[in-house]
């Protein structure tokens, strides 16, 4: 897979989770359709992010093309991706390979 973890902005919390053995991540990708306010709303209401954190990740999606929104087991990430598709957000999961 071309997208290595190095290419992604990984925050401290995510680093910690990865070191605890959470080898899969959920990514949300930029699209020209979804409103920034809606993406931010989904991040707050579904993932429970604070307003500031939701805005930060939403802006990351917008400016960098994608953002990591969760990490954990493959099953957990599949559940998140399915939920994002329910909201109409473009989300994928992938294994974090070094």
């Amino acid at each position: 897979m071309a997208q290595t973890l190095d290419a992604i902005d990984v925050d401290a919390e995510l680093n910690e989770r990865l070191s605890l053995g959470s080898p899969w991540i959920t990514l949300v990708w930029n699209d020209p359709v979804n409103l920034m306010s809606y993406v931010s709303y989904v991040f707050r209401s579904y993932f429970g992010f604070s307003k500031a954190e939701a805005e930060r990740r939403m802006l990351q999606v917008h400016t960098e093309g994608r953002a990591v929104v969760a990490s954990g087991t493959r099953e957990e990430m599949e559940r998140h991706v399915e939920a994002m598709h329910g909201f109409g957000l473009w989300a994928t999961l992938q294994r974090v390979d070094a």
Partner: protein
Amino acid sequence: MTPFAREGDVIVATFEPAETEILVQLADDVQQLLADAAEAEPDSTRSRAIDRLLPAAYGDGGDDDAEFRRFTSEGLVERKIGNAQSVIDTLQGAKVAATPVRLNAAAVQAWLRCLTDIRLSIAAGLGIDGDDDESSLAGSDRYLFDVYRWLAFVQESLLDALEADFS
């Protein structure tokens, strides 16, 4: 329309009869699109719309994508059709001019998701793939594009009304 505003337990807006008619039609279109998803021709507008409503979860075009879609698409399609039905149902009472649409918490969620699904399917038809594509649309698509932008206004208004719930 008058923008959405909170009134106690519900969120309320008033639509013009023509606006109600368009929303019902578009929600119905999305239901048809999803119900007939299996019959969409490859590379058609409809198949592009379906690919955006049910994106590949792994994005590698392989067995994992196929398996994810096999296990999730039925439930996702069912919920999306249900959301569209909720939009249609809540608009039934609003067909008489100036009758407000009243959304409870469940209907709000259905509306947010269905407005998104409608906009995604219109965007697939208009070929809006990049952030700059909106400005280059030809005249014949102008009406649909205006509807697409109006739907963004409706959704933004709904999100504004919800903002108070977070604080």
